[in-house]
Every structure is written in C-alpha cells, then in structure tokens.
C-alpha cells in the first residue's frame, strides 16, 4: 500500500478515538454504559461516512464497510431464519424433547411426519455446497418453483387480472358525487376546478383509454400499424407519463433516506441539532 494510504488510515483512526472519547464524556451523565455507547455511535458514524466516501471514489474504508456488511447481513438472516422458522415452526412439530430444549410449545398433530419433507428437501439444497451432489439440489428447486408457480397462477389471475378488469368499469359520464344531470347542466356548471365534474370525467376517460391503449402496446403478435399502431403509440405515451410519475415519487424516497442518514450524523453523532 502507498504511504498516503497509511497516513489516511492513521488520521481516521485518530479521529475515531477522539470521537469515542468525546461521545463517551457527553453520554456519561445519563448513561451507565457510556463507554460502549460512545463506541457504538462512533462506529455507526464511521460506517456511514465510509459508505458515503464511495461517492468520491472506491477506497479501503468503503471496502471495509462493504465486506463487513456482507458478513453481518448473511449471519443476520441465518439467525433470524433459524430462530423464527426452524425453532418456532419446525421443531415444535417434530420433536418434543428438542422443543423442550428451546422452550417452545410442542405442537403435536397426526400428520406432523410430513414436516420431514421440507427438512429432507432443505438438506438436498445444502448438497449444492458439495462438489458432486449438486444435481440433487434441483429437487428442492423444483419444489420451490412448483410452489411459487402454483401460488402465483391463481393469485395473479385473481388480483391482477380479474380485479383489475373490474376496477376499469368506471362511469364515463361521471358517477358518485358527479352524477350526470344532462348536457345543459354540464355546460352551465363547466369549470376546471380539481373537484369539478369535467376534471373527474376526463380522469375516467383517461383511465379507460389509457388502459386500453397501454394493453394495445403490449400486443406482441400483431403488427403495430394503422389505427392499431396509433393506439399503441398513445399507449406508450401513457406508459411514459406513468414512468415519469414513478420517477418523481422515487426521487422523494431516495432523498428521505439521505435525510435519515445526515440527521443521524448531525444529531446522534455530532450533537449539532436536537
């Protein structure tokens, strides 16, 4: 490594220790574990800054944070999976003795022996770790795919297909609070207010035509020419507006996350704001 790298590391380490001492002292008055808590806050801040440093360029601090992240998160998922599913859902159905050991309520049942199936499939999945038994892991994979396919098949047909069709049954002449009361009434009360009849009417037409043209765009087995092509073009326009809206919303979400992190740095670590 270059000398500047060593100097950088020494500086960061020094700042780290300083921050630890500073946090420790400031937490001392109302906290019994002030040394530990001071360390934890400093460490969190260090990790936050280490990740942000990636914006400048890739560097050893970022790599440290990234590698720590990989290790800790993998173990986090394993532990939670173990305690919440294996211990709480599987063991109570298989063995009373082991349930007793983990102090979880035993759940006897006449068909519990079926619960050996997932255990066997799970172990087959782990066979992938061995160089030769890899092919057997296709069985659990097939099971997983069968389950998701079976579940998806019905759910998507029902919620995304049937339900979405029926949601498109919108009243084109205004409904609900905008009951159609004849053409004269429509024109005499015509305005562009957000809660007015005209706007509501246009919204319903846009929904209907938008879904229609959007679906036309997704026709793959027909050439997009003539009227069909024009509808498909309107469809892509509607889709683009959708994506623009989605982009706008997303920006908001991303900024919130940054706000969260900077608030942490300024409030919890540096104590600049209350």
């Amino acid at each position: 490594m270059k000398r500047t790298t060593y100097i950088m590391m020494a500086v960061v380490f020094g700042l780290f220790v300083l921050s630890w001492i500073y946090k420790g002292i400031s937490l001392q008055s109302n906290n019994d574990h002030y040394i530990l808590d001071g360390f934890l806050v400093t460490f969190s801040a260090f990790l936050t800054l280490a990740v942000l440093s990636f914006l400048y360029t890739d560097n050893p601090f970022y790599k440290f944070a990234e590698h720590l992240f990989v290790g800790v998160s993998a173990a986090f998922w394993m532990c939670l999976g173990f305690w919440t599913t294996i211990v709480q859902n599987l063991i109570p159905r298989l063995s009373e003795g082991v349930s007793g050991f983990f102090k979880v309520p035993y759940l006897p049942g006449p068909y519990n022996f079926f619960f050996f199936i997932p255990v066997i499939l799970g172990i087959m999945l782990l066979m992938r770790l061995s160089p030769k038994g890899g092919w057997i892991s296709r069985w659990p994979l097939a099971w997983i795919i069968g389950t998701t396919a079976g579940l998806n098949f019905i759910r998507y047909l029902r919620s995304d297909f049937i339900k979405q069709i029926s949601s498109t049954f919108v009243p084109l002449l205004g409904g609900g609070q905008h009951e159609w009361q004849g053409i004269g009434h429509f024109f005499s009360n015509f305005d562009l207010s957000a809660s007015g009849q005209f706007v509501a009417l246009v919204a319903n037409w846009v929904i209907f035509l938008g879904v229609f043209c959007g679906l036309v765009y997704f026709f793959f087995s027909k050439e997009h020419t003539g009227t069909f092509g024009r509808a498909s073009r309107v469809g892509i326009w509607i889709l683009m507006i959708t994506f623009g809206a989605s982009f706008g919303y997303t920006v908001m979400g991303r900024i919130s996350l940054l706000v969260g992190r900077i608030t942490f740095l300024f409030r919890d670590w540096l104590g600049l704001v209350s």
Partner: protein
Amino acid sequence: MADLGIIVSLVIIFGGLVALFVRSIQAREVDRRIIFLFIFIAVAAPILFPFTFSETATEVVKGVFDKIESLPEGSKVLISFDFDPAMAPEVQPMANAISRHSLEKGHKIIFMSLWATGQALLTHSLANYILPGFPEKQDGIDYVNIGYKAGNEGVLNVIITDFRKMFPTDVNSVLLDSIEVFNGVNSAKDVDLVIAIGGGKPGPKEWVLFIGDPGNIPIGFGVAAVVAPQLYPYYPAQVIGILGGVKGAAEYESELQKTHPRFRDMDTPGLRMMGPQTLAHVVILSFIVIGNVVFFRSRRREKKA
C-alpha cells in the same frame, strides 16, 4: 441564527447552480462529484437550520386516518412492519404515527413483520417511539408483538386461514391462546383493519393479494415513495388509503395533531423532513432544467452547422 444559516446555504446552493449552468453552457465537463456535493448541501443545510411547512391531508391519506378514527374501541388492528433500516427513515414516521393513533383510539394492535429486519426494527420502535407515550398500555392486553416468520407471501397464505399455525406464539414464546388480544382472532379474517407498512417484496402488494382480496379485509398502506405509484391502481377498490413517502407521513402527522391535542408536542419526523426534501427537489429540478437548456442549445448549434 437559524435564519441566517439557511439564507447563507441558499445563497451557496443557488450561486453554485448558476456557476454550474454557466459551465454547462460552455460545454465543459462537469465532474459527477460536483453534482453529488450539491445534493449533500441541499439536504444537510435544512437539517442544521430547520424550517417546516404546514400540511393538509389529501384524500388518500385521510382514507387511512378516518378508518382508524371511526373504528369502535377495542377493534383489532394488525400492523405489519415490512421494511428494513434502509427504508426506515421514510416509513418509520408513518408506522409510529399510525400505531400511536390506534393506541390512542383504544384499538388492540397485533404487530408483526414479513421482513427479518422488520422484527428488530419493530422491537426497537415499540420500545423507543411508540410505547413511551402510553405507559398504561400492556403487552398482551392492548397490543402484542408476534414478530417475524420467514416465507414471504407464504406466511400470509397461512394466516388468512389460521394464525396459530404460522405463529404458535408471540416473540416471547407466549402461546397466542393465552394472549388477550387474540381472543376471537383465529385468522387474519377476524382482524378489523390491516395496515401494511413497507415498500419492497413482500410488502403492500402481497397484503392485498393474499389477505385483503381473499379475506375482504380493509387494508391501509404506509409505503415508501418508490412503490406508491404502483399501488394507486388498488385504491380505492382494494385499499382504503395510501400514505406515500415522507409527504404522506407529514400529512398524517399534521392531521393527527389537528384532531388529537395530546399529540401537539409529539415528535414529527415526517413534517421535519419536508424541509430538506423540498430543497433537494428544487436542486434536482434545476439540474433537469440546466441539462435540457444545454441539450437544446447544442442541438440547435448542430443543426446550424
């Protein structure tokens, strides 16, 4: 002091934008890091020198608010924390506001999570944000935390017919049968309202697909801004209301403060975050404008040439 600070930072930001504009017009390369710096300042400045705006709740947000307001006392409300720390700044304020509101109205809350990381966050926010305001509420009687189970939408597929099969116990290994909140609750169908807070998968959409639609249960969403647009098709037929992103949280918080005086002094992270949010939006909008002005100028020049 705070006013001066914000004025100075505004001057810096807008001065910088003008400089950026000039540089771009001259078709000189702008380093990405300069762009990054703008965003950092735009977000950091309003945090250091806070300013807030007033909010009024829109229809979609009121849908959730009014439902919780109108349910009779003692109704069962299920709140699911389906998010991770990364999403937390955005949806945590909603989770807190909705939980507090429900406790205040005397509803019995079942807390759960479909995300492994959600359980840890749930424990944390119960202890630090939600319960401190309600010392009289008791675990098991007024609320219960049944935690996380692996299996994504599979979990929902089971609890729609039987809670106890998926969650034999709560997080402290207490059998559900001996928990008062679960009296008369066999499946998710016995719950009066579901609030799904999250934004990934499994998340709000799965709650509609696997719980709301098959069980005909009213569902409200508190979601990250990223996914909010995708959830609008479900409103209002399949979902009673949607809180989208920080703006949704801010609206809910202001509605809560308006109608429940005891929350006047409550911390309002949602409202607080609107300041940095606004400034950052302005900066991004300026980027889009600058980028396009430069684009059209160069295109015109190309046409001339």
